[in-house]
């Protein structure tokens, strides 16, 4: 059957696959026929993702990408890849007058330095095939939008925005494409939702937030995974250096 979005025959590395968007992207990629190498820090949760994958021939590697050794070890275990999805990310909330250097470093180490350095080492070690696709999970926060207490998170994603453009240009000669996805609010573990919804007031606040979305709902992980599938597939072979916004229309403003 004709399907330009198929990932059959493609080998894809997905970071941050032990939870949230990374987990969903990994699973959905396998449904489209990809074989995947999933990585994350937590072996139990990573294995839970592994068990959910469809088909066979997949790999899982526990790795901490905040260290040189962690990145090197992961790259060593990669065979030649057709795609890489950088989904590992954290959000450190700060008030303006209380920002510590260690918080800035932690935020950037995970969200910015790790995907940058991993990308570079993969290319250096010839692990990326010609025609491959890099997908960076960015955010509407820090690129189009702002969100209270998220200034560090915003900075880390704004940096990714710039890096994607630079790398897209530099890797184009190898026919390697580099793009990002900008999700709106998708309730996953990164938001510690369980902590937030402990009262009727908070649930009502969440409901109000949801109604602010023109499409009247928060995102589901599959909404983002489908965007990743498009960017990883041959259907997007003329797309590079772009930022795919998947946000239910929230950034339209709409007074």
């Amino acid at each position, binding site marked *: 059957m004709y399907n330009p979005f198929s990932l059959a025959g493609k080998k894809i590395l997905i970071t941050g696959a032990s939870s949230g968007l990374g987990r969903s992207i990994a699973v959905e990629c396998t449904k489209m026929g990809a074989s995947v190498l999933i990585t994350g820090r937590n072996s139990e949760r990573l294995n839970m993702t592994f068990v959910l994958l469809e088909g066979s021939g997949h790999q899982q590697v526990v790795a901490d990408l905040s260290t040189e050794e962690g990145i090197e070890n992961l790259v060593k275990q990669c065979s030649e890849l057709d795609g890489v999805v950088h989904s590992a990310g954290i959000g450190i*909330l*700060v*008030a303006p*007058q*209380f920002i510590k250097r260690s918080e800035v470093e932690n935020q950037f180490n995970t969200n910015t330095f790790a995907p940058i350095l991993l990308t570079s080492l993969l290319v250096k070690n010839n692990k990326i095939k010609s025609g491959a696709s890099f997908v960076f999970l960015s955010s509407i926060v820090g690129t189009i939008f702002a969100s*209270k207490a998220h200034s560090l998170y915003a900075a880390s994603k704004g940096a990714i925005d710039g890096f994607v453009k630079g790398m897209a240009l530099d890797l184009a000669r190898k026919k390697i494409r580099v793009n990002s996805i900008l999700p709106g609010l998708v309730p996953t573990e990164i938001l510690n939702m369980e*902590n*937030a919804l402990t*009262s009727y007031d908070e649930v009502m606040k969440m409901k109000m937030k949801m109604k602010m979305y023109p499409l009247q709902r928060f995102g589901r992980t599959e909404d983002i995974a489908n965007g990743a599938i498009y960017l990883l597939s041959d259907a997007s072979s003329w797309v590079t250096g772009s930022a795919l916004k998947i946000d239910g229309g929230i950034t339209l403003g709409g007074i």
Partner: protein
Amino acid sequence: MELSQFIEKFAEQFDNTPKSSFAATTDFKQLEEWDSLISLSVISMVDDELGKRITGADIRSCATIADLHKLVESK
């Protein structure tokens, strides 16, 4: 830290609320200016000034500034 000093430090996290609005019995989450950013500032202030870690859940469990002071002292 004395309650009166704690109230002062608490009030410092607000920009648009007069000092007179802050007392031991103030139901601080009902203050107009209260939001998640100020909640975060209070958490950071407690960490900076007293070296103690409180959480969003801790803050939600307290009604008045005196309640919060008591909770912080007990940590």
